[in-house]
C-alpha cells in the first residue's frame, strides 16, 4: 500500500518536472532585478547570435539579490549581476562583488559619468524621474523644479508613490547630496503637506489619479509615461489626453536620473561571456532594444531616446547626483520617515 501511494505521488511529480532539464556547454549565468520584457528579448537575441545560453535568476528586490550573491561568496553561480538603481551598483562594488570590466568597447560606448570610476560596473539604460501634470489646471512653469511641488499653491494636489520604493529613495538621496539635510526635510515636509492622497500604488497609478481628477501633479518615471503614450490600448492613450510632462530642474542641477547597470562578479566562471553580453547590451543594437522595448533612455549618445519622449525635448540630466545615491540613501530614508512621507 505504502509503495503504491508513494509511486503514484512521485509519478505525478516526475512527469511534470520532466520538462525542466537542459544542458548546454557555452553558458552565461545572470542575476538580475529587472523584470522587463526587453531583457528577455535582449537575452534571446544574444543567445541566437553567439550560441551562448543565457540563464537568468530574477529577484525583484535589489537588497535581496545582493544578499544572495554576498552570502554565496565564491561559490556563487552568478557571472553577471544586473540591477536597477545606481545605489545598488555602488553597494555591490563597495562589498567587493565585482571584478574590473576591462573592456575597451564599453569604455568607448558609455560616457564616463555612467560608468564606475574604478571600472567595476557600467550603466546600461537610464530612466528620468519627471513631473506629470494636468494641462488644464497647472502651468508648466508652476512645476519647473522639484522644489515647486512643496509650494503652498499645490496644496492637496500632489500625487506620489510610497517612499518604500527605491525610485523615491534615490531621488531623495540626490536631493540630499545637492541641497543638504535641512532642505530635504523642508521639501519632503512640504510635499507631504501638499499630498492629494496617502502615497500609494505605482507610477502608472499616479497618472491614472491625475486623469481621474484625484490630484493635478505627480512624480513619475519616464518609461511609464512613454509606455502609456505609445500604448496600442485606446484607454491608455485616453489617460494621457490632458496630461503633459516637464523635465524638472532644467535651469539648475538637471532632472533626477537613475541608471540600470551591470558588473562581472569576482568569482565569475564565465567572465568572458559576461563581458561579451555587456558589450552587446551597450552596442547600438542592444541600446535600440532598450529604447524601443522598455522605453528607457539609452546610455549611448548615438542612439535616439524613445520617440514619444523626444517630443518633449532633450532633458538636461543630473549626472552628478548619480554618484551620491549609494552613500546618501539611508540618511535620506531617515529624513523621509521623519517628514512623514509613508
Amino acid at each position, binding site marked *: 500500500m505504502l509503495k503504491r501511494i508513494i509511486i503514484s505521488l512521485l509519478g505525478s511529480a516526475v512527469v511534470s518536472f520532466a520538462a*525542466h532539464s537542459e544542458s548546454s556547454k557555452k553558458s552565461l549565468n545572470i542575476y538580475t532585478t529587472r523584470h522587463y520584457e526587453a531583457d528577455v528579448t535582449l537575452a534571446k537575441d544574444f543567445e541566437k547570435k553567439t550560441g551562448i545560453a543565457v540563464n537568468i535568476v530574477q529577484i525583484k528586490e535589489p537588497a535581496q539579490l545582493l544578499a544572495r550573491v554576498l552570502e554565496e561568496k565564491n561559490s556563487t553561480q552568478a557571472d553577471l549581476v544586473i540591477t536597477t538603481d545606481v545605489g545598488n551598483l555602488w553597494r555591490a562594488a563597495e562589498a567587493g562583488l565585482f571584478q574590473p570590466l576591462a573592456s575597451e568597447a564599453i569604455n568607448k560606448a558609455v560616457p564616463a559619468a555612467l560608468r564606475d570610476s574604478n571600472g567595476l560596473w557600467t550603466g546600461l539604460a537610464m530612466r528620468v524621474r519627471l513631473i506629470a501634470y494636468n494641462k488644464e489646471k497647472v502651468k508648466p512653469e508652476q512645476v519647473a523644479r522639484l522644489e515647486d511641488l512643496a509650494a503652498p499653491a499645490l496644496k492637496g494636489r500632489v500625487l506620489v508613490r510610497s517612499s518604500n520604493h527605491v525610485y523615491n529613495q534615490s531621488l531623495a538621496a540626490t536631493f540630499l547630496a545637492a541641497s543638504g539635510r535641512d532642505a530635504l526635510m523642508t521639501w519632503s515636509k512640504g510635499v507631504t503637506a501638499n499630498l492629494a492622497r496617502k502615497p500609494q500604488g505605482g507610477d502608472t497609478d499616479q497618472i491614472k489619479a491625475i486623469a481621474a481628477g484625484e490630484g493635478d501633479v505627480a512624480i513619475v518615471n519616464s518609461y511609464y509615461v512613454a509606455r502609456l503614450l505609445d500604448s496600442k490600448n485606446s484607454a491608455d492613450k485616453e489617460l494621457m489626453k490632458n496630461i503633459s510632462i516637464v523635465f524638472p530642474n532644467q535651469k539648475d542641477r538637471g532632472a533626477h536620473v537613475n541608471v540600470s547597470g551591470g558588473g562581472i562578479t569576482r568569482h565569475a566562471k564565465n567572465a568572458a561571456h559576461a563581458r561579451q553580453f555587456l558589450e552587446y547590451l551597450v552596442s547600438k543594437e542592444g541600446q535600440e532594444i532598450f529604447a524601443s522595448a522598455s522605453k528607457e533612455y539609452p546610455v549611448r549618445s548615438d542612439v535616439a531616446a524613445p520617440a514619444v519622449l523626444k517630443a518633449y525635448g532633450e532633458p538636461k540630466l543630473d549626472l552628478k547626483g548619480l554618484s551620491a545615491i549609494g552613500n546618501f540613501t*539611508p540618511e535620506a530614508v531617515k529624513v523621509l520617515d521623519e517628514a512623514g512621507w509613508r
Partner: protein
Amino acid sequence: MKIFLQIFVFALVAIFLAPVFALLNEGVQSLVSEKATLSSDLLSRYGLTSLLLLAGSVSGAVLFGTSAAYLCARFDFRGRRLIQWLSILPLGVPSYLVAYTWVDFLVDQGVPGGSLRNLPNTCFVFAVCLSPYVFLPSFSAFSALSGSLLESAKLLGKSQFEIFRLIEFPLARASMFAGGILAGMEVLADFGTVDFMAIDTWSKGIYRSWFGYGDRGRASLLAVILFLISGTLLFWETNVRAKNSLARSGRSVSLHTRKKLPFIKSLPFLFFALIPALVSCVFPALILTQRVYSKSDPEQWASVVSPALTTLGMASVSSVIVVVLGLAMVLIWRSNPGKFVRSLARIGALGYALPGGVLGLGLLILLAPFSLTGSVFGLLLAYCIRFATIGTSTLEAAWLAIPRVYDEQARLLGCTSWGVFNRVTLPLLQNSIACAFILTCIDIVKELPATMLLRPFNFETLAIRTYNLASDERLSETAPSSLAMIALCMTGVFVAEKLGAFGVSERSRSGK
C-alpha cells in the same frame, strides 16, 4: 528504538528551526550598530497598525466563517450544499490577487484609488479570503452538537436565541477561536497584500529596515519578534484544539437534525454567506476571464505554460515530502514516544509561523556555505519547513479517528506493527493522504517570497509571474497567470472536498 526516534525527531526540529537561529544571530549583531535606522516611534506605529488590521480581519473572518457554518450546520434549505462548498472556495485564492484584481477593476470604473486603499478595505479582503479557516472548524463543531442536548433545551422552553447563547456558541467557541488564530497568523505573515493596499504593518518595518536602510540585522531582529508572536499564537491554537477535542471525546454524540428553512426566509442569510465566495473567487475570476477574452491574444497563454508546469512540479514534489514527513510524524506519535518527543514535534510545527520572505533570508544564510542556494533542494526545504504542519495536522486528525481496536485486532491476527501500518492504517488514511497532499500543494502554489529569493536559474512559478507583471504596473496582463493559479487551486479545493478533506461532505457525516 526509542532513542533512535528521539534523535530523528530532534534532528528534524533542529533543521526546521535553524533558519530562525540564523536570523537571531544576524539580528544580535545589529544591536551594536550605530547606523541610521528605523525609529522606534515609527515601529510602534507599525505594530499598532498590525494589531488593528489583525483585529479587523480576524473578526471579519470569524463573522463570515461562523455565520455560514452555523447556517449550513443547523438549517436545511435549498442550496445548502452549494453554500458549504462555496464557503471553502476562498482557500484557493491568494489575498494579494483579490486585492490586485478588485482595485484595478474599480479604478478602471472611475472609483478614485485613494478611497480604496485603506484599513477597512484591507480588513475586508483578509476577512473574505481567510473566512474558510474559521468556517471549517466551526462547521464541524456546530455539526457535532448533540441533538439530545438541543432537544432538552427546547423542551425546557428556551428560545432559539437562548439556545445559541447558552449551548451552541459556548460549545463551538473553541473551534471558532482556533480558526481565528490561524487566520490571524496569515494576516501577520502577509506582505504582498498590505504593501499593495498601502497599509504599514510590522512587515513593512522589516522590509524598510532591510531595503531602505540597508540594515539586514535590524530586519532580522524584527522578523524574529514576529516569529515569536506568531509562534505563540500557533501554540495557543494547538492548546485550544487539544482541550476542545478532550472535552468532546468522552461524550457519545447523537446527531441533531437540521431545521428546515423556507427558501424565501433563507435569502438574506444566503446572500450574506455568499459574500466571501463572491468577493474572493467568483467576481475576480469573471473580471480576469473578461480581460483575457477581450485581449483575444492566443500568445498570452503560451507564456503561462512553462510557469504552470514548474509550479505543478514543485508543488507536487514538495507535497509528497510533506506527506511522507507527516506520516512519519504520526507514526512516531502512535508509538507512544513520550512527552519529550511530543513537545519537540510541536516546536517543529512552528515553521508555519515564519513569513516566507523571512524564512527565505534565514535559509539563504544557512544554505550558502553549502552552495545550495538557487537549488531545487533549497526550495524544497523552504516549502517543507513552512508547510509541514499542514500535512501533519491533517493526517494526525484522520489517524486519531481510527479506533485503536483495529490495530489490536490486526495484531491478534498475526500482523507485525509494520503490517498494521501498511495494511490497516494506510488504506484507511488513503483519502486523508490525498487531502494533505492537495492542501499542501495549494499553499505552495500561492507561495511567493521564499520562492523569489531562493529560486534556481530560469525558474518561474505562476505566483512569481503574476507578481512581476503587477510590480511592472501591468496588472491587466496578469490575467492569464492569475487565472491559471486560481484554476489550479480551486481544482485542488474541489477534489479535496470530494475526498472529505474538510469533513463537510455528506458522506463523511453519515459515515460516522
